[in-house]
Each structure stands twice: as C-alpha cells, then as structure tokens.
C-alpha cells in the first residue's frame, strides 16, 4: 500500500511547534502509551483507575501543574500543556480529567488565589503527585448556574463553618484536599478543605457509563469547621472559580482532539484492512468522504487549539475565545467518534477498539466545565451584548 499521512499530518502543523513543545509532547505520548494504553480497556470495563499510582508517574515527569511556575511546577507553556492533554486523552478522557482537575483546577486555584503558606504547603506535594486535589463548585441542584449555589460558609469566632454538598467532583473519593467554593456574607469564597476534616464525606458515584476510568464523587459538608487560614485570600466572587474553569477548559479543547485523533487513526487502519465486496472498505468513496471530512475537522480543531494556547501564552486569551474552542472541538470530536464507529461497523461497539469508549467519554466532556449550550450562549452574548441566560 502507498504511504499514508497520519490524520494530523495533513497540514504539517507539527512545524508550528517548537522543538521543546515537540519534546514534551513526545514524552507525554510515551507515558500515555506505556502507563495507560495497555490497561485502559480493562480499567474502563471494571470502572476503576489507579489514580494515585498514575499521579505519581505523571508527577515524576513534571506533568501535574506543568503550566504553573514555582513550588516544584515545571513552568511549561500553555501550548505544551495542551499537547500533553491531547496525548493523555488520546489514551482516555478519564486520565486527562485526572490531570486537568489536579493541575488546572485544584493547583491553579491555590497557585493563583492562595496565601504563600497555602502554596508552599500544598503545591510541591501535588506537583509530585503525592497529594491529590479536587475542585468543588457544581452542586446537586446547581450546575450551569453556580451563582445560585446553596453551600454556605459562616464565621464562628475565628473559624469558618461550611455546610452544603458538591456533586460530580472528579478525584473526590481519593483526594487529600478539596477546593470548595461556598457563599459567605462577603460573596463566593474558596476554601481548602482536607478530605479528612470531621464532617466531610466523599462518596463515589458509581454506575457511570462515561469516564469509567476516572474517579468521580459527591462531597457532603456537614457543618465542617475550618481554621481561619483555610480560606483562599485572593479569591472573592464567582469570577475566581470561573477563571479556574477557563484554565481547565483550555486542556479540554486539546484533549478532545486526542480522543478524536485516536478514533480517526483507528478507523483509517481498520478501513484499510477490512475488506468487503473484495476490496478494502477504505476504497469506497463513502468511506473516503467520511475520513476526509473528519481529518479536515481534526486539523481545524488543532489550529484553533494552538491559536488559543498561543494567546494564553501571550496573555491575550479571553473567556469567550475558550468557549469557541470548547464548543467546537468537543462537538466535532463527538461527531468524529460517532462517524468512526460507523466505519468499524459492528466492531465499532466492541471494547477491543477504543472508539465507543471515547464516544462515551466525550458525552461527559461535552457537558462538564461549561455545557455546550452555555458556551453557545456565551458566544451569543459576546456577539449581541445581550445575555440569554440571566
């Protein structure tokens, strides 16, 4: 068979990356190939993930909080961080979620809004993967509308007392510390809550049909008493947790491309080998049209992600730009996964291939960290100046 281009080789977009970015990408790919891929189908099937072990492996190369500076963090660019997310999610969205929540939500919140003492006591251990963090904003009754959160923080002498519940919290059942967002008399504030604090319970959410290789939980806060220094001094108002989400969404914009790339590579390989009517499925024009359309979307998504990360690196990234990226790349990745499933026919639903797993994962990715509907309305507001959701 003649030479074929890898789907992401179509535009030669590799040339847009620096040597350093490629070197980091290659290490991320290697670690995903060696530490995740051989086991992922099994983890997904059993609904489990050795998150603590993986965190240590990831921490050893400096992958956790890699885009942050100081406190044992690598200080890499937003592009390098994005490429890493893409490689991890090419293995599985659940593993990328572990890293996003640790680095871009929990560590970022502490790094950006924490006191010097909070930073130096938590960040180095989190960067090494010895301590796991999670991020509690979403509640059972408040998802897209976090401003209506029911979790309350009240002062009692010098102490803080937190009461409420957080839902769909990645890493919660295994975490050492949670960044909990609660409403106080002063507005929304962030608190560092060790999971072993009396009154805190983290229950695992089971029976998920998506992100099965990721640990998800509910955090119940029953009059949890915290010392005065548990509050993040720099965070006041909802824009603080939302800035963390903007940070994490950038990883999703790239991550979704990883899932899509893995599906497309699988589908191309399959189509070239699988024969029907005496020739490879890839020889049929209908298949080629599917592959071409998917590759076009994948490469467009890559350029979009790269543009957004370069903007982040120069400090010109605005939240609605990230909404464009998340809306487009996750939507297209899901469409690619579904189309790839059709190319594999019945084999497409088999756990022997990664496609159905990616498709199921992407259903979560479409919704978490800002649903596609909310991102659409963010863009609507940016274009018209009129908010459609408040």
């Amino acid at each position, binding site marked *: 068979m003649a030479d074929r281009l890898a789907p992401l080789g179509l535009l030669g977009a590799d040339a847009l990356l620096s*040597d*350093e970015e490629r*070197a980091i990408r290659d*290490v991320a790919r290697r670690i995903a190939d060696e530490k995740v891929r051989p086991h992922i189908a099994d983890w997904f099937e059993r609904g489990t993930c050795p998150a603590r072990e993986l965190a240590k492996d990831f921490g*050893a190369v*400096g*992958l956790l909080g*890699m885009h942050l500076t100081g406190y044992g963090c*690598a200080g890499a660019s937003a592009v*390098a961080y994005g490429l890493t997310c893409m490689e991890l999610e090419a293995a599985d969205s659940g593993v990328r979620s572990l890293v996003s929540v640790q680095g871009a939500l929990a560590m970022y919140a502490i790094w950006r809004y924490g006191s010097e003492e909070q930073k130096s006591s938590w960040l180095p251990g989190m960067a090494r993967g010895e301590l796991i963090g999670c991020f509690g904003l979403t509640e059972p009754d408040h998802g897209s509308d976090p401003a209506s959160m029911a979790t309350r923080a009240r002062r009692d002498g010098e102490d803080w007392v937190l009461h409420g519940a957080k839902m769909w919290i990645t890493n919660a059942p295994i975490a050492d510390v949670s960044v909990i967002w609660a409403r106080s008399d002063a507005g929304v504030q962030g608190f560092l809550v060790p999971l072993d604090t009396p009154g805190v319970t983290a229950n695992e959410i089971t029976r998920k049909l998506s992100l099965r290789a990721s640990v998800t939980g509910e955090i119940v806060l029953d009059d949890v008493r915290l010392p005065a220094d548990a509050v993040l001094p720099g965070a006041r108002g909802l824009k603080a947790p939302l800035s963390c989400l903007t940070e994490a969404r950038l990883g999703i914009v790239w991550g979704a491309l990883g899932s899509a790339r893995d599906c497309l590579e699988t589908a191309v390989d399959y189509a070239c080998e699988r024969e029907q009517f005496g020739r490879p499925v890839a020889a049929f024009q209908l298949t080629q049209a599917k592959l071409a359309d998917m590759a076009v979307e994948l490469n467009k998504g890559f350029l979009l992600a790269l543009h957004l990360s370069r903007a982040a690196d120069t400090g010109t990234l605005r939240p609605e730009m990230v909404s464009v990226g998340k809306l487009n790349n996750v939507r297209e990745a899901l469409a690619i996964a579904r189309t790839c499933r059709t190319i594999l026919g019945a084999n497409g639903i088999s756990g022997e291939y990664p496609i159905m797993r990616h498709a199921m994962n992407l259903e979560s990715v479409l919704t978490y960290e800002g649903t596609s509907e909310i991102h659409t309305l963010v863009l609507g507001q940016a274009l018209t100046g009129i908010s459609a959701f408040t």
Partner: protein
Amino acid sequence: MKIVVLVKQVPDSGEERTLRADDKTVDRDAATKRMNELDEHAIEEALKLAEANGGEVTLLTMGPGDATDTIRKALSMGPDKAVHVSDDALHGSCAIATSKVLAAALGKLEWDLVLCGAESTDGGVQALPHMLAERLGVGAVTGARKVTVEGATVTVERQTDEGYEVLQTEGPAIVSVWDTINEPRYPSFKLIMAAKKKPVESFALADLGVSADEVGLANATSQVLEFAPKPPRQAGVKITDEGEGGAKLVEYLASEKFV
C-alpha cells in the same frame, strides 16, 4: 565522581533502513534518527551513580551536526553537559577510527568512569569499549547487567547466555551495559526546558589533534563492497505427519539451529 556517557545517534531500528547507493554508508537522510536505545540505559545508570555518590555526568557524541537533536534529548534525562565531536571528514569512519577520535576526546575530559551501551543498533560491532580501553590504557568491563562502584573499585555483573560473570577492575574504567541493567527514566518537562541551556562543547578533528587522513570512509579498515536488500520472506515449511512427522520436525529444528 565524574562519568562520561557515550551517546550515538542512530537510524531508528524500528523502520526500514538502507545504505546509500553512492558510498554504501548508512543513509542517514532517509532515516528517522534517534538515540541508540541502549545508550538510554547507560545514561540512566550514570545518573543513578552520580545521584548516589555525588558527581557529574557528561555526554560524548561523535556524529553529524544534526546529532544535536539526540544530544538535547539525552540531556533532558538529566546529564549536566555534553561534548559533540563533529567534522565532515568523519563521514564513513570505521570502528577503529571512531575509537581513535573518541579516545582523543576522552583525553580532553576528566572522568572516573565511561559508560556506554553494549552495542549500537546500526553497527552492532560491540568492540568499541575494548578499543577505547586499549588506547587509553584502562580496564574495560562489558555487557553489564549491574554496576557497583566502591571507591576506585568497579564491580560488574556481566550478562552471558548461561547466567552472569562477576568482573572487577580498578577505575578509571569503561563499562558497557545491556538493557537489563535498569529502566530508563522519562525526560522530565523541567529538564526538557532546561536542556537547551546546558553547555554543549563542540570539537572538530583539529581540536583533538587527529588528522583527517586517519579517519573517514577513504581510510576505513573495512569497506562495504556490495549490498542487497533482504530477500522477501519465504513461505513456511509444511511437514505432513506420515508416521515420521516428529523426526522430520526435529531435523528441521536442528537444521535451523533452534535445538
């Protein structure tokens, strides 16, 4: 403790490799280039020894200009600095000439131990450590699956087909390693970013006091006269059991030297 690790850039052994039609040397332009796999194990061992005993790890590479890619990758595993010997006259050098150049470069460096892979995946000669040891007048203990250093004494478990041999020498010494010795670490992101700031010293032949007429293809002690692509795989041998299948099977296995 000062350790020098010999690192070679080779064509990726996972791909189809070819020789050039004009001078019958390895076609490096057609190949994806990477660090010789076993060298990663030598670097890992050097880093471990330096971490345990204190010290410094220097990489030494002889190769064309683009071998800097491999040097940067190797540096991102953790070594402190590198020396790159590069000269157009070196193209096509045989193992003996290579050992002359590397020995001259090692003569310019301070070291207690030289580590290298047991072989390169392109040449596969396995003789370079011995050649270097001969030129430098030091001991060579090769094919290690374990290295321990106590004071000036270097003890090595040499892997053999039957088991292993324990060899000991007084340093300075040259040790070559197999992949059984360790699990190389991943380059860390921090070190990847730091690698471009690490010093890489360049030597040309003149800097080493080696003359161009001692090296290169024209002065090589061995020469490729002709080469042909590997023949396509033959169909397998089918033995039908008509009472003597077992004997025929053994005969076949013996003829192929499997037993």
